[in-house]
């Protein structure tokens, strides 16, 4: 998805760009607008967290532990007196790497393998699907351990491990979807125009099989972030004291009474990300398919 390209190109170059920009804005409904705003904020937080949260995320201040939200600390402090808001902002990058990376990996590889299984010969299909079954039966924790054993610890490897454990679901869904789409006449036509079969699949089947997969993916992001937290205990993923939403979630789980912001903050961040991606995803889909309204005729 070439997400960022859409917005700027929609702004016509006129003598009064501000007016034009406003007009463009007005054409985008409120929901997607807010969602885009959230995504932009997330991007800023991931790239230059210092801009949004000047306070250092790891500065321990035991005297001010578990301070309530207020002007000094927007969302209060944790048990070590670290600023929760700042930790949330600074944790964005690692969290997104794990959450989006793993989901993206599962989505991308799942779509390709699923489409391959659906369109290739029966033998290939059978082999791929049985391998998927094996992967499905393989506990995620063990998978993570294997990844550590083979590749060593690290955030990237955690992403890989989570992505792999999410993969089977996506492969199955993609295959089912591609079985439907792959029979479409336009794929045959593309081959008839002299395209190699795999190009035709890549160009036609994959994008058309994608929409339900994307819905599924947005619903999986939160799970990936949470899974990331459970792996950081194994040495995969970000290590303390570096902030990461999943780890913060785990830290804050018993703290509802003492510091609600500490307990809720990371969860809300995950949710906001997933929600924003869902809304933007639907919006993009509508635009790309040239549908307007609610997609109902």
């Amino acid at each position, binding site marked *: 998805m070439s997400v960022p390209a859409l917005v700027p190109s929609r702004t016509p170059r006129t003598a009064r760009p501000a007016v034009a920009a406003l007009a463009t804005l007005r054409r985008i409904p409120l929901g997607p607008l807010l969602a885009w705003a959230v995504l932009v904020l997330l991007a800023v937080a991931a790239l230059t967290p210092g801009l949004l949260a000047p306070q250092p995320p790891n500065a321990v201040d035991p005297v001010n532990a578990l301070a309530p939200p207020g002007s000094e600390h927007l969302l209060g402090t944790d048990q070590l007196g670290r600023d929760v808001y700042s930790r949330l902002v600074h944790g964005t990058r690692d969290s997104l790497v794990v959450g989006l990376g793993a989901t993206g990996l599962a989505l991308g590889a799942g779509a390709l393998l699923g489409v391959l299984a659906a369109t290739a010969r029966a033998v290939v299909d059978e082999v791929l699907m049985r391998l998927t079954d094996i992967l499905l039966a393989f506990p995620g924790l063990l998978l993570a351990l294997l990844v550590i054993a083979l590749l060593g610890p690290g955030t990237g490897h955690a992403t890989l491990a989570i992505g792999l454990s999410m993969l089977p679901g996506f492969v199955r869904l993609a295959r089912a979807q591609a079985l439907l789409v792959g029979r*479409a*006449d*336009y794929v*045959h*036509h*593309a*081959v*008839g*125009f*002299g*395209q*190699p079969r795999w*190009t035709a699949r890549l*160009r*036609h089947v994959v*994008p*058309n099989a994608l929409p339900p997969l994307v819905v599924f993916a947005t619903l999986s992001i939160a799970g990936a972030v949470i899974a990331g937290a459970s792996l950081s205990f194994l040495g995969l993923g970000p290590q303390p004291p570096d902030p990461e939403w999943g780890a913060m979630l785990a830290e804050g789980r018993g703290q509802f009474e003492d510091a609600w912001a500490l307990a809720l903050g990371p969860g809300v961040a995950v949710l906001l990300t997933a929600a924003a991606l869902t809304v933007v995803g639907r919006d993009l889909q509508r635009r*790309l*398919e*040239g*549908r307007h309204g609610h997609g109902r005729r």
Partner: protein
Amino acid sequence: MAVAEEAARPAAGSPADPSGGSPADPSGGPTGGPLAGAPAESFTDAKPEAEPEPGPAGEPPVLVVENLRVGFARGGDVVRGVGFTLRPGECLAVVGESGSGKSVTARTLLGLTGPGAAVRADRLELDGVDLTGLDERGWRGLRGRRVGLVLQDALVSLDPLRRIGTEVTEVLANHRLVPAARRPARAVELLAEAGVPEPEVRARQYPHELSGGQRQRALIASAVAADPAVLVADEPTTALDVTVQARILDLLAERKAAGAALLLISHDLSVVARLADRIAVMFGGAFVEEGPAAQVLAAPAHPYTRELLAAVPGRHPRGTRLSVRSPELPPPGTPAPADAGCRYAPHCPLAEDACRTRPPEPVRLAGDRVARCRRLDRPWPAPRPAAGPPATGPSATDSGTVVLTAEGLVKSYRRPDGSTHRAVRGVSLRLRAGEVLGVLGESGSGKSTVALMAIGRLRPDAGTVTLLGEPWPGPARGADLRRVQLVQQDTLSAFDPRWTVERLVGEALGAAGRRAARRRREEIAGRLRLVGLGPELLGRRPRELSGGQRQRVAIARALAAEPEVLVCDEPVSALDVSVQAQVLDLLAEVRERTGVSVLFISHDLGVIRHSSDRVLVMKDGEVVEEGEVEEVFARPAHPYTRQLLAALPG
């Protein structure tokens, strides 16, 4: 209906009467809005004194509609002042072009216009009961019981996941007319009444296990199960081959004879000729002409009616244009620029300036007919010959080189139970350079299978296909496949729904070459011009095109691959006659310009007769007859061909 009562009066209606719409009748006058002061928006308005009184049959009308207007949230009204009455045992046929509002009108009669629809009517009465203020509960009580609807998309109007029997008796369950235990038996009876063979078996089958014609009958059975007073049949025969079509029409005739009032909707005049007592011709949301069936068919008054009749292929010699519209005119379905003028004016060869600025008023004609046109007196232009003499006449093909040859093609499909079904059993054909070879045959006779083998998508089990003497598809496959292209019936599924027209056509041009983007764009625009489409369509997606436009894009795309052979599988059967006419004209033109050879598959005799040089008749996977098209039509040799020709309506 109001007009029907005219029969009892002197046909002295003054077409010029400007007070035709005077609010003499307080209940029937225009309800305001921009049209309030305009003359005669509907037929009934023209005759405010018209009351539902006993007609010639002596029976009161079951359905009265006056000045019905329907609009959707986006865009203006799509039904703009329709009015009629329907008596028991009477059949009113509504014909008209695609998108003129026929189906919307039909659905409105059951309160199923859809969400976001605004329905207004001066009168909408069933059995004297006003329906305008009815709530959803009230409507539900009527649906199926008082008014039955046979939907337009018959093949997909039965729930594919429910058994036929359950679907047929659903209306009985909904209205608790027959206890559950009795319903299965009733379903069988109903199916039998509808002429479905082996009703006991069918009742337990799923829709996909029935042929198209059987499904259509089952759907009719479900619509008449509760014996409604009014039966609305929306395009009940489209996409059915002639023999099946005839049987369906017979079935409807039976219902009519049994006393049901029938509203028959079609875009095909010849289909309704058998059944209709009266015909209403719809264009742009209004009835532009209405009158007794025989008279309308024999002497069409309104230019659009005349166009419709002219567009029926098979009525005209080959080599003539069917369509009077020039490709430059806006395609059908395009909303008229303003409400002010006649909707047909932009397409009308007779239009004058006044047509575009002032709405036409109803003109009463002899023989209980009304037409809405100010140019009724003008003669209709004679059918134009195709531009230039046909490059390849029947005689020319005799000597032409053979482009595509099929020898003894056999193809079997595996059935789910493991047995094999021989879909094609030894078909041979020769397609000569520049010729159009028609393939005729009933549904399931293997036409499409032959087409797929011809384009190299399907490998025959036995037999060979050669292209210009070489085995086809060649060992190289790949780019080689471009040499034979397919235009299929269902263009919507032939196009990737996410792609724009530009990309779609560009795909056929080939990805190689890396031409500069702008030059490529120009080339694509040029390809579209070839099929009479403007560059403004380049950015549209398939769903944003009308059926006719889509079919043109499909042809443009197929031609962009510069094939030697074009295989057209039912290219026009989903289109309404006027659009179909344009596409057939286009194909003829393209053949002249490019000299491409065409394998033309259709179940429509008229279409084949009009467009083909030679014809092949298929039945059960075999060629039963072959010859020059006129020869075959004039002197059919095989009994099946004879049966086909006999079933031809009109």
